[in-house]
């Protein structure tokens, strides 16, 4: 990003230009303030209250935050979101890196276009549709079990989304399905920008594919990896749609994520204060996870 000083123009005094700039910014700022900044502030305010959304509210101090950080159910729910990071972030990024470096020379021409198009479809459809498609895949009579039967693993078949041990990984893999294509294509684009001379040099030095990956591909892809991690962590921590339609958070609270719990606390259990406190905590958790990634992977300029 280039930041240059504004030019001093004798005909338009600085103050006038600044006033004009404010005029340009005002509409966007007003709507942003009204529907994001104000609710953010109200969220913090609500989080200090005991309120059922209807009757008289009473001041609760930090007790809602205390509950978020000590209640075993809420802790498990926050933990679920972090477990989703494995499937939303770690798997797509690692697999994406490996696949991208194997296919790096084959994404040109018509084959490349077809590949890009198909791998992008999960990005275009509503997540709700992905959730519905996969609940059917995971159904007891669905494709996953059909496949297991086909390869002789009958004993592994189960209703995946209703299983206490496998529901969360199953939901997580829906995220993998949605995000792998995006990560892969981001990484392939990044690899295309690497100077081919580096690969030639590695080849002349007799590097194995692994060494090539380790010393040429990986270091050059730092910014793209940063982008993948950032985007997917945000999706994991703030997931809602997929869980809402595929499991509704069950069985028990095995797949409940903070987004779903906020919705439930605020609109079903009428615990507005606690819901808001969880919202504030979620907002902070996302920032705490994202900022180090940004800091570690940004390009040195």
């Amino acid at each position: 990003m280039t930041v240059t000083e504004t030019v001093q123009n004798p005909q338009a005094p600085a103050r006038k230009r600044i006033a004009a700039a404010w005029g340009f910014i005002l509409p966007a700022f007003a709507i942003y303030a009204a529907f994001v900044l104000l609710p953010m502030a109200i969220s913090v305010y609500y989080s200090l209250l005991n309120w059922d959304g209807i009757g008289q509210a009473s001041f609760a101090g930090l007790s809602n935050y205390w509950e978020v950080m000590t209640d075993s159910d809420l802790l498990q729910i926050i933990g679920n979101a972090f477990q989703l990071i494995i499937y939303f972030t770690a798997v797509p990024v690692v697999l994406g890196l490996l696949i991208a470096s194997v296919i790096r020379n084959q994404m040109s021409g018509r084959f490349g276009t077809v590949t890009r198009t198909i791998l992008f479809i999960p990005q275009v459809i509503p997540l709700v549709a992905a959730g519905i498609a996969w609940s059917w895949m995971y159904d007891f009579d669905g494709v996953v079990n059909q496949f297991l039967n086909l390869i002789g693993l009958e004993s592994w078949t189960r209703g995946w989304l209703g299983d206490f041990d496998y529901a969360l990984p199953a939901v997580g893999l829906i995220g993998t399905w949605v995000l792998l294509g995006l990560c892969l294509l981001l990484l392939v684009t990044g690899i295309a920008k690497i100077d081919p001379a580096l690969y030639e040099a590695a080849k002349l030095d007799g590097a194995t594919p692994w060494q090539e990956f380790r010393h040429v591909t990986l270091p050059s892809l730092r910014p793209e990896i940063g982008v993948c991690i950032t985007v997917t962590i945000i999706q994991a921590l703030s997931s809602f749609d997929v869980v809402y339609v595929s499991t509704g958070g069950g069985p028990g609270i095995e797949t409940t994520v903070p987004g779903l719990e906020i919705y439930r606390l605020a609109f079903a259990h009428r615990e507005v204060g606690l819901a808001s406190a969880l919202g504030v905590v979620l907002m902070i958790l996302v920032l705490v996870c994202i900022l180090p990634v940004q800091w570690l992977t940004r390009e040195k300029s």
Partner: protein
Amino acid sequence: MNHWLRNPWIGRGLIVLLMAITLLPFLSMLSAALAPSGTYPVGLSWPSDPQWGNFARAFEVANMGQMMLSSLLIVAGVVPLAVIMACLAGFGLSKLVTGRRKWLYLVFVLGLTLPFESIITPLYYEVRALGLLNTRFAIILPLLGLYMPFSVYWMRAHFIGVPKDLSEAAQLDGADSWREFWKIQMPLARPSVMSLSILLFLWTWNQFLLPVVLVQDPTKRTVAGALGAFQGQWGTDVPLLCAGSLIILAPTVILFLIFQRQFVSALLQGAVKG
């Protein structure tokens, strides 16, 4: 001397496998959608007597026509306004780059990582206080605000990249900022505006949380939100549910296939900048 991993067929095989896994859920939905309504289909199997009529029935019982129209109205309310406001603010912010005033830009960027769920509770009470609950404005107005961080960030990045000489030349010709913006800057911003419009269209069309919380009537929701209601009502009729879901995801997929170059580049850039 060639390592086996360099064999092009390994890469090609991997890609084909990946494409198959990507398409599998859609095929599985299609095969279920063609089973007789009310029955319980089994996995991936082409039905002996495909019931294409399920699509027509799903279209009818879910009031799809109304739902699509509603989504279009919401998109029409959100996308053009959001783009214009973002262009204005992006341009304004690109002029306010000196030291102290940068905080204003940072305030916008602050919203980039905000999970919508974090403010959905106060939004509900705010929209209720405005008397807009159960109207399309309950979705349109909050989305305009929620899209501002990304949109403003996006357009500012564009305007910052425009050579300064251009703006100086315009000012020497006596154009004020307003004229410069419309006559010189906006025509140049077309590609960025296009990409932003595509992204905002997709996000709006696929928006789920806001309609579920703020609008009860499925015919006033976005298509994605309505799909949630459809699932609640018809979730036990797998063929009908699958047919309905396929209809609902068809418009964006068709648009995507037509404009795939623009979509892919918008989504890739969108990820990089977001």
